[in-house]
């Protein structure tokens, strides 16, 4: 092989490897499913009179399986998705309660269930997402 063609061959091989590697990554990734998106501002409506007063809204900041929930009454919860999730059932575990988002539908409404640890009661709210984190679209800068 001539001295001039060797780098060319190296680059063709490198390019081929890169394209193949990228193809493999994209193919494998196609089957991956990230956790359901719960981020945004939610409006809370207690379903029972005994439900704890956490305020009328909550803000959910989500990074994959990790969530930080800030209620309007000032309470904050760091929670983590626990177990298999589907949009209709998202169980969360946190230090002080077990939380579930149930029945999330295309209208962004769901039911929020909280079981505070060491307390024998369940709080339930009907929740509706009122806003999601802003994302820049084309020409929106």
């Amino acid at each position, binding site marked *: 092989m001539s001295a001039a063609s060797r780098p060319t061959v190296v680059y063709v091989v490198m390019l081929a*490897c890169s394209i193949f590697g*990228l193809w493999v990554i994209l193919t494998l990734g196609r089957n991956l499913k990230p956790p359901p998106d719960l981020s945004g501002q939610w409006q809370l409506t207690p379903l029972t009179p005994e439900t704890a007063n956490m305020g009328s809204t909550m803000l959910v900041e989500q990074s994959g399986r990790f969530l930080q929930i800030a209620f309007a009454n000032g309470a904050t919860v760091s929670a983590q998705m626990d177990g298999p999730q589907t949009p209709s059932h998202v169980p969360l575990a946190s230090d002080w309660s077990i939380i579930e988002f149930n029945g999330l539908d295309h209208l962004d409404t769901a039911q929020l269930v909280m079981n505070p640890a060491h307390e024998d009661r369940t709080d339930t709210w009907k929740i509706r997402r009122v806003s999601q984190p802003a994302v820049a679209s084309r020409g929106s800068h």
Partner: protein
Amino acid sequence: MKVLEALLQSGANPVLLLVVQIALILGLSRLLGLIFTRLHQPQVVGEMLAGIMLGPSLFGWLAPHAAAMVFPAASIPYLNVLSQLGVICFLFLVGLELDPKLIRNRGHAAVAISHVSIVAPFLLGGALTLFLYPRLFNDTPQMQFRSVALFMGASMSITAFPVLARILTERNLHKTKIGAISITCAAVDDVTAWCMLAFVVGIARAQGLRGGLITAGLSVLYVAVMFLLVRPFLRRLQQTYERQQRLSQMMVGLIVLMILVSAYLTEIIGIHALFGAFLLGAIMPKAGAFVKAINEKLEDFVVVVLLPVFFAYTGLRMRVGVLDTPEMWFYCGLIIFVACLGKFGGSTLAARACGLGWRESGAIGILMNTRGLMELVILNVGRELGVITDAVFAMMVIMALITTALTTPILHLVYPQRKMEQEQILDASGGYSVLIPVSRPASGRSLVQLASALIGSNDTDRRLLALNLSRPIDRDAYRAGIDAEQAPEANNSLQPLLDEALKQKVPVTPVTFTSRDFASDIARTARLRHVDLILMGFHHPVYTSSILGGTVHRVMTGSDTDVAIFVDRGNTAGIPGKILVPYMGSKHDRLALELAGRMARNRNVEVTVLHVSAPGGNSGDNKLHAKSETDRVFNDPTQPLPVTLRNVEGDSPVDLVVEQSKEFDLVVIGVAEEWGLESQLLGFRAERIAQEVTAPLLIVRKHGNFHAARGLPPEKIKSAQQTAAATA
């Protein structure tokens, strides 16, 4: 606090609030930038940290109330606008600095390393997404796997060209093979990274195949218009500039307008405003001073005011608090590991495969792993597009900070100063050699005259080195500015010296480089070049009135070479005819004798040794010693030299020297407490001899052990030291 609250009553007045915010951002950013520079870190690391500190990660965490007052949520959009504008202008400057020669004229090694340094981290970033996607990303339309994987790959392959160039310049590596390869690779990475970003943004924003094709078609059209229409127009602008020899405000306005229009168009096309700004800068004609003039007009405001706002805006959006579990920190560590593996590992292996040694390959890998500000730019784009989550944003910012901050210390470990010095050591010739550090062009002439008298004209191995050190200019903090800007200044500083050397027929080797620490670099150069004497001019230190203070003190105490400080009275006319050497017997006095002897031998000048001793005392022995030393230096049987030994007694050696010096053209004197000449870092009292002797002074200091330097055996050194101590 009350003052702050009063200031922030301006909460109702967004302009006042913005003024307070910018003042705070600027103050902290300059302060931390300065501190990090002192710690031999790139300034940008301090400024990035300042931005993070102002956000919820520190300020908001320590004082949430105050933070909410200073940076209320309603004010963030104003900062966003300023920071976006800053980054757009900055990307234009980055493009402006892109030297096509760097990319065109590169060797096979640079080509291979630059490509691998992009491909390896890109693929590893994509592969890492396979693991992180189900854990750290949300099921949103923006976070589709394809967009996330491409974005993660692109953000892992970034190299901060400006920071890298800065590190190379500061370590004087930019003229080495490593420096040349790294700079080329970083330039290629720069171009590739912004093109890749445009591609990723296009993919992330494309709505269906049709949308994607439209974006691709418009992008090609835009690039074609830029090259075929805009570039020729820019050439015309350049010609106008060259004709007028100045950049008019009209022209500056036109260029800023073009930046904004180009950014606007690419944003509308869907490949992000930053690409438009970068491309406009990249296609600017680079020949001549046109580009430099544009730089000077725009750079200071962008770099000093707008970029810190961008850092603060990034810091305000970043919350380290979201990383609140060990698992999150594990992912953060993994991102850092993969980023380093891809960039450092890829570049190192590619360099090794190209035939470089492990150490050099490692150094290139470390340099390429610097991400700096560029990473923050790309991360903010990803955040705006909704391609990454808060946690991934925070992790990647930490990765950018760590990879940038680690570059200098790890480079020191892998490619230590000692190693660099070994490579730079030059063969010492047998002749007498003098190093002249020149800081003021005017002093060069008299120093060369003196040096020429010291090294003579008969010795073919004699060497004269002219050293010009320049401080790194501020703009280097963000941009390379490697050779083009500093070389002319260096030549100007050395020019009078070089002219005089030509006249004296003394061969001179000019040495120029950038230095943060003049004193240690002077000492280091003297050591590396095996010079016999450092001959420096004297300028009043800024904070003291002492001659032997400040840098002079540090050179005297920190170098392994003899040092002579020339105090020019401005009345030196050529070579001195009569030299006085005050002598009391110290090793520095003996060096003064030897230097005077050299001048006598080379220029046939008349030397008078003024032996000063206290009245009474052991004056007989002292006189004998002074006589023997004078004979040793001057009474060479092959070439006896005209010398007179004067013995004087008095209580005040300084008064005697002042009185006797009146009839001489030069006084060569060793540093000694008895002469009132002591080297001190902060001397607030000017030396009496320096003030009262009207003749020019050459104050000399012998380095280390004089007797060892003369090659005496150790047992004789001890007895000689005892004798010297007794006589002194």
